[in-house]
Each structure stands twice: as C-alpha cells, then as structure tokens.
C-alpha cells in the first residue's frame, strides 16, 4: 500500500504542529445534501442487511472458544460495564442496537 512517499512523510510530520486548515469554516459541519446525492448509491433495499436488536451477549469463557487472541474487537465501556464486538462479526452485521448497563447505544462498523 502506498500512502505517502518518505519525503512527504517528513512534511506531514512537520505540518501536524500547525492548526488544521479551516477551508470549510463557512459551511455547516454536516455533509451537504448535494454532496450526499452526488456521492451515494443504493446497493440494496432497505433492511436487506441484517441489524441486531439487543442481541444476547456471552461471557469471556464462551468467547474464548470462538475468538483467537489477536482478533480485533470493538470495545465499549460505560461505567463498570464493558462489551466487545469482534470486527469479524461486525463486518457482516455492521449495525447493532444494543444496551450497555441502562444506556441504549448503537455499535456500527
């Protein structure tokens, strides 16, 4: 993968001390509808991809049987509660309406 040449990498290293350019300061923060219409495409019907609603979660012992130690997970912590969503699973599900402790949350990938 080629991201940056070594010379450019040096420039980038220097430039991160500078403030971010304010090229779009006069525009609203969200993406414009025009940009959305120009750069979006329907890949499937609504709800063609499965979404999970408050799925059953398992404990560490059960997860250990399925996950390899180096498998990346999305980890979410709210107060004393912690929940993990393996990227290998989220790559297929993409969106979960879940609850952590008492807090309703979305997890997406």
């Amino acid at each position, binding site marked *: 993968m080629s*991201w940056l040449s070594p010379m450019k990498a040096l420039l980038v290293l220097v430039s991160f001390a500078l403030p971010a350019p304010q*090229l779009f300061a006069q525009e609203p923060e969200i993406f414009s509808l025009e940009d959305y219409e120009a750069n979006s495409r329907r890949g499937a019907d609504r*709800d063609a991809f499965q979404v999970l609603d408050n799925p059953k979660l398992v404990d560490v012992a059960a997860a250990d049987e399925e996950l390899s130690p*180096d498998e990346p997970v999305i980890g979410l912590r709210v107060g004393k509660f912690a929940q993990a969503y393996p990227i290998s699973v989220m*790559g297929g599900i*993409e969106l979960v309406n879940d609850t952590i402790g008492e807090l309703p949350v979305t997890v997406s990938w």
Partner: protein
Amino acid sequence: MYERQLDGEVLSFGHEGVLYRNSFMMYDRKTESLWLHVTGEALKGPMRGKKLKFLPAEVMPWKAWKMLNPQTKVLLGEKAHGFMGSFNLKEKLSSYGLAVGSGRTQTLFRFNLLQRVPLLNTQVDSKSVVISYDQKNSYAVCFAAKSGQQELHFDPVLNDPESSEKRLLMRDSETGSTWFRMSGECSAGPLKGQFLERLPATTWLGKRWIGFFPEGRLVGLE
C-alpha cells in the same frame, strides 16, 4: 459508537442499503431520517442536523480487551463474508488510524506513526490534545491536554521495572504530575485524582477514512 437516545427518546436504527462515500447509511425507525453511522449525524429527513452523543470505543486485540475488562460481555455470531465484511479480516492493525476532530477536516493519525511516536502533543480544531498509543495492543486514545484552564504537555515515563505497575505512564511538564496514559487519570503529583477529558476519536481503516474525508488531514508514515 453513540448513545441512541435523543431529546429523551430512545431511537433504534436499521440498515438503509445506501452507501455514501462507501460508508453505509442507517435510518431511524421512527422518522426514517438517514444518518451517517460514521459521525452520528442525521443527513436527510426530519432529524437533519441532529447529532447522536459520541461514546468512546477502542479497537484492540481480544486478549488485551479481556485483560482490561475481565467481566466483559461479547457479541458472537457468524464471521463476515461478502459485502463490506470480508476485507476486514485481511487487514492488520497497522492499516488503522485514530480519527480526531469534528467535521470534514478531521485528522487521521495512522498507527504506523504512533507505533514510533506513541505520545503526541498536538493540535486538533485549534485545541491542544494529547494522543496516546499502546504499542503492545495497537490502540490509541485522545485527551484534551489541559487541567482547568492550564494547558499541559506530556512526556512518556518509563515504568519502574521493580514496580508491579505495568500501566503506561506520562508526566506533564507544567506540574510534574504523573498520569495513566490510556485512561487519562492522574496517578501522582499535584493533580492526583483528576481525569483528562477524553475526546471523541474513532478508529478507522485508513483506506476507508480517506474515501470519506478527502479534505481531511492524514498524519502518518508510508
């Protein structure tokens, strides 16, 4: 990740089936507004302009997460194949970065840079921040670099090999206080007990992020 409650009401979301700049759109089942899952903002429909509250989350290896959170619950399920899913399995953590800042001009700090420079004092949205990276577990967090009105600058501190304390540490040069690098809690010194404010920051696959934020700032090595 976001709270899915807004103005006292719980929202739930479905998959719209539309890709915008190669990221999928979600819709809320009540108003059918379309939301960007990558920023938590409603783009189209009655909720346009609303924003879900950001919840910090980290992407790290399972073994590291369960060590930090032995009581964690875990989602299991079928492993991904096909549309949008399969490539994740082939990517290494070095392909990721931490995106910081708001709007379209946010900055992605690639993990390959943070692997070499694991503690960065820098500026995002004209605010001083400190980005801390756990080289062993390949994940990063971002904090506001201040206590009250006082701006702080941090240097990494090596753990005493005699000590049982293995958590990563840093010290601010203004007060000499010592802090846990990944939690932002001050462990010793004049500011002991204080927490740095954790800032919204999202782990992205670099390639995806560039496609979504072409005006953004990429900081990293080849």
